[in-house]
Structures are given as C-alpha cells and as structure tokens.
C-alpha cells in the first residue's frame, strides 16, 4: 500500500519536473542555477561554519561565525537590559502568552469578558514589569532593545491603533457629515505620509506641544507615532469588513430599537471584525516590519541591535552573520502570522 503511494507520488514529481522535453530542459537549467547559488551558501552557513568557541579567533574555518551570534544572543533578545533583571522580560512574555491562550481556550460565553479583563490587566502589568517601580528596580527605556523591544513596540502600538482604527472606520461610515469629514482627513493624512517622517515628527513635536515640564519618554513617542499611522491603516482594514456586511444587519438592529452604539457593538462590529481579521493581521505584520524604523531616533530594536553590533571592534566583519540571524527571526514571525491570516481567510470563504 505504502509502496504504491510512494510510486504514485514519484510519478507525480516526474510529471511536474520532466513532463515535456521543454519542461525537463527548463528544470535542469534551473536546478543547475539553484545549485550554483545554494552550494556555496550551504557550505558557508553549515559545513564550513564555526559553532563552538567564545572569541573571533575561534572562527578560522572561513565559513559563518555563529560564535558571534552565540556571544551576542542576550543582546539580540534583550538589548542592553541588565542581565540580572532579564527574568522580568521573560515573565512579561509568559504572562502575555498565557493571557492569550486563556482567552482562546475559554468557553464561548466567557471569552469576551475574559478578553476585556486581559486588555485591562496585561498592558499595565507589562509596563510595570519592564520599567520597574513598586518594589522592582527601575530600568530606563534607553536600556531596552532587541527582539523584546520589537515585540513591545508592535504590541503597544497596536493597542493604540486598533481601538482608534475601529473608531475612525465607523466615523468614515457615519451619516454625520462632520464626523465623516474628520475621519476621512485623519485616515488619509496618516496614510499619506511616510512612517519614518512620522517617527521623526513624534520625537520632535510631542515634547513641543506638551505643557512645559512634562516630558514624554523617547520610546513612548515612537510608540504613539507608530500607533497613529497604523490606526489609519487599521481603519481601512476595518472599513473593508464594514462594507462587506449587508446593510440589512444595521437596519434590522435599528428596527429592533437598539441605539447606534448598541447596534454597533452587538450586531455590526462582531461580524465586521471577523471579516476584517485577516486584513488587520496583515497590518500587524506591516507594523512589526515598520518597527525597525525606530532606528532613526536611535532606539535599538532587533534590526537596530544587529546593525549596532557590527561596530564592535572585537567582532569585525560579522555583517552576514548578524543580517542572516536577524532576518531569519523577522521572517519566521512574519511568515507564521501571514500563514495564520491566510488560513483565517480561507476558513471564512468556505
């Protein structure tokens, strides 16, 4: 039985790769080209690579020097966060994962309440754990960095972006002309300007428009700036869901005597958000990728710390190792999320 299955899959592959003479010719040429690229790459990354050791001198084989990544691993993950305090970051991460798992696994009728409770409890808890106070040592945001900072910025910026985005998406659909105009201006303004300019803008203007004496943390400025831009993109993602929902849904809710906000909260949004979820996930992926731009105001997220590590005089010429490692992490996170978003979409289509 299994022999036959493997035979048929073998013939399937033969058909795919060498179905016609022309296909076979193209396949052979392409395989040669792949080999020409892949063989040196694999030699560099695996065969000639150095895995064990502690210093630059250990890397004599000519291949990749993964010792560098090993020596720098802590920095890539936590930035300059004090080593003896890193457990706080771990706990914050675990609390976040457990919180999401609890909401996903909870029975249907508890899910909404539990989700809202998590939304109220987790964000302040995370900030307390990371920055300190109330018995914990203060750790300045200057010392945060690496993958932890990438995730922190992405999550907290989307905590601003999602509610704001939903509000402006509703505003754009509103029958009140002034509200609609304000929403359109907000959305089109933030969608029209480059994110790098917004990060500059936030770091320069936020301190300027606050009453004298109030200083907003450098990292908070970047998070607020990113949050506003992504809110505009989220609003467009939510608008897609609102537009896909038949008008009859809101009309029926109004006919039942529900007020605008009750109809929105109980009838329209639960359905519209479900439709928008894949698009919103894609915006979240874009947010993770755009988090790298905080580099321009010298906040060192994962890519920033990789770039900064190239300046270390003890580790000259580690460009490829640093890029390969940080690029692989970004790719894994974004690829997993985009697969999830795609599966959500296909589930909806069925």
């Amino acid at each position, binding site marked *: 039985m299994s022999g036959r299955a493997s035979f048929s899959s073998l013939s399937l592959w033969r058909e795919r790769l060498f179905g016609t003479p022309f296909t076979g010719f193209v396949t052979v040429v392409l395989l040669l080209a792949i080999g020409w690229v892949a063989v040196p790459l694999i030699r560099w990354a695996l065969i000639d690579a150095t895995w064990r050791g502690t210093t630059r001198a250990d890397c004599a084989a000519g291949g990749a020097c993964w010792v560098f990544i090993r020596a720098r691993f802590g920095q890539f993950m936590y930035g300059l966060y004090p080593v003896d305090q890193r457990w706080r970051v771990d706990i914050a991460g675990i609390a976040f994962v457990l919180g999401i798992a609890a909401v996903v696994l909870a029975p249907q009728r508890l899910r909404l309440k539990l989700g809202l409770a998590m939304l109220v409890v987790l964000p302040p808890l995370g900030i307390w754990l990371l920055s300190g106070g109330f018995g914990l040592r203060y750790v300045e945001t200057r010392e945060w960095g690496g993958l932890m900072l990438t995730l922190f910025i992405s999550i907290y910026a989307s905590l601003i972006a999602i509610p704001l985005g939903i509000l402006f998406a509703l505003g754009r659909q509103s029958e*009140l002309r002034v509200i609609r105009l304000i929403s359109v201006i907000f959305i089109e303004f933030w969608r029209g*300007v480059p994110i790098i300019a917004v990060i500059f803008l936030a770091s320069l203007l936020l301190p300027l428009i606050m009453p004298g004496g109030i200083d907003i943390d450098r990292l908070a400025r970047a998070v607020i700036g990113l949050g506003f831009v992504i809110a505009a993109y989220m609003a467009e993602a939510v608008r897609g869901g609102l537009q896909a929902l038949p008008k009859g849904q809101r009309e029926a809710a109004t006919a039942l005597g529900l007020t605008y906000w009750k109809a929105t909260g109980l009838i329209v949004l639960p359905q519209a958000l479900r439709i928008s979820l894949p698009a919103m996930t894609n915006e979240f992926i874009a947010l993770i990728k755009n988090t790298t731009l905080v580099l321009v105001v010298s906040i060192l997220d994962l*890519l920033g710390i990789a770039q900064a590590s190239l300046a270390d005089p003890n580790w000259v010429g580690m460009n490829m190792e640093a890029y390969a490692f940080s*690029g692989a992490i970004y790719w894994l996170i974004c690829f997993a999320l985009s697969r999830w978003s795609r599966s959500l979409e296909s589930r909806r289509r069925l």
Partner: protein
Amino acid sequence: MNLLAFINDKRVRDWFYQIAVVVLLVGLTVFFVRNASENMLKAGIASGFGFLWRTSGIEVPFVLTGYTQADNILALFWVGVANTMLVTVIAIVLATLLGFVVGIARLSSIWLVSAIAGAYIEFVRNIPLLFFVLFWYFGVIAALPAPRQSLSVFGVAFLNNRGLTIPLPDGMENLRIAGWIILACVLAYAAFHLWARKRQERTGLHAPTLRVGLVLLLAIPLLTLAWAVLATRWDVPALRGFNYRGGFVVIPEFVALLAALVTYTAGFIAEIVRGGIQSVSHGQIEAGSALGLRSGQVLRLVTIPQALRVMIPPLTNQYLNVLKNSSFGAAIAYPDVVSLFMGSALNNTGQAIEIIAMTLAVYLVIGLAVSALMNWYNARIALVTR
C-alpha cells in the same frame, strides 16, 4: 413636553454630537498650539518661513539641480524633492518589470519556475524593507571591490564600493533632438490608432496597426537613439590614481536604496499581477476563442483589460508605497527630502514645525492627487448595490 420632543429629535441630536466633537477638537488644537508657542518662546525659536532664504551651507553629495552650498535652504529643499522623485520613478519602473516577470512566472505551468517565484515572493514579503536597505548598503555594496578593481560594465560604466560611475554626455543637443523625434512618433502612432479604431467601428476594415506600430514605436526611435548616442561625445570615466575621473558618480546610497526598493516592491507587485490574471474566469477566455479570436487577441482584448481592472487600484497603492518608502534612504543618509530637509536643515535651523509641515506636504500633495484619481476610478468600476 416641547423640550422633550426637541431633545429627542434625531436631527437636533446629530447636530449636538457634531458640534461637541468640533468643540473638543478645536479645544485640543488651541491647547497644543499655545503650549508649542510658549515652549518655542522659551527656547528662543522664531516661527515663520523666513529661514528658507538663509544660506544653507550644507554640502550634498548627490545633486541633480545646480545646487551649491552657497544657495538658500529653499534650494536645498528642492534638491531633496528631486532626489526623492528620481529614486521613486526609477524604482517604480524596475519594480513593475520585475514584479510582472515574477507574477507571471508564479503562474507558469512549469512547476519549478512557479516554485522559485513563490519562494521569492514569500521570502521578500516577510522581511522588513529596512533590512534590505541595510543589507544592500552594508552587506553588498560595502563588500564590492575598491575603485582599482572595479567591476566593469562593457567598459563604459564601473561599479565599486564608492558607487556606480556612468558616462555623461558632453552636449545635450543631439539627445534633445532625438527626444523630440521619438515624442512625435508616439503621438503619430496614437493618432493613427485612434483613426484606425474609428474606421473599424464604422466600416469593419482592419488597419495594419501592428506594422505601423513596429515602424513608429520601435524602428524609428531605435535608429534615432542610436544616431544620437553615436553623434554625441561622451565623457567616459577613466581610472586616475585611486578613483575614477569624469562621468557621473551614482552614489552607493542611491544604488543600495534602489536595489532594496525594487527587490522588495517586486514581491508585492508579483502577487497583484498573479491575482489579477487569476481573477479572469476561464469561461471568458473560452468565449473569446469561441468568437474566433486568436490567442494573442484573447490575451489583448479579453484577459488583460479585465485583469487590469482588478490590478490597477492595488498597483497604484504600491506605487504610493514606493514614494513613501523612498524615505527609508534616511537610514543610510541618501539625500532625499526626509534626510536632507527634515534631518540636516532641521538640525541647522531648529524650525521643526515649518520643516515638518513642508516635508509632509510633499508626500501628501502627490499622494492625495493619486488617491483622488484612484477613488474616482474605483467608484466608476465598483458594482452598484441598492
């Protein structure tokens, strides 16, 4: 009783909410503006656009206009805008070409071709653009050989770690004439095409569009261009000492930013192309051939027009993204409008609000013009519901 009816009147309530929102927004704006003017007064910064006429004193390594350090800050602004536009336009053209190739390869019947295209798309789309910018700049261009060991491109252009040196024409006379001739050919072809279509609708007669097109759009332009290139004296770069002299140096920042924008955007355009072509149902193609159209005609008259309808809105979005993403050059100090004006000029003058407003206006003016056009187009082709 009357009051109750008044309060519960929907129109009254609507107006009340809208006025409340406006009052809140105006209040916030006044609050922020007052703080800003107080803070600026304390820091001793004067507001206004007078600083634009001060001498800039900023040296720019890559200038398309005639700018020098002695010019004013407004001239610096235009240098930045020109550099932003240059990299945007070239990146859009190249990314569209690469994106179409990859998108069509994704639909290839040869499995390996489609698999490689798919791997490229998945690789590129899930990595930050800034990663590619840094990678091309610090990973690839910095690893190129020094000028003395340059990679030669047919002996006229030279690629090394200080950028790409290309020949420069000594006089523009012949090239300008060639440009006018080519423009005339294109206009003549457009007029001919219009006439041919009108005549076909009226009489059903076919005009030799293809042959005329080959002559007007390919043969004459190529001959004119060949004449112009040969008749012009070129300043070909040559190695003197440690670097190349003559020609025009395209700085490495430009090469790296362009390479990053093209490879990244092509992945997104490829998906749009694939989606557009797949959105045309197979029945359309069968119906086309049942009507007696040849396969080329089916592609030109049935598939492409319908695929384009699906493709143009997201494609326009991608082009706007390229415009905005060209600002990623600020991370490697490519002198675009963000790094030159929002970076250098702001540092020198401290006029944060004016400079930020002008920089954002560049993107908003171009972006809003394009997106207004797109919304109009979108509304025209949208399916009309009740």
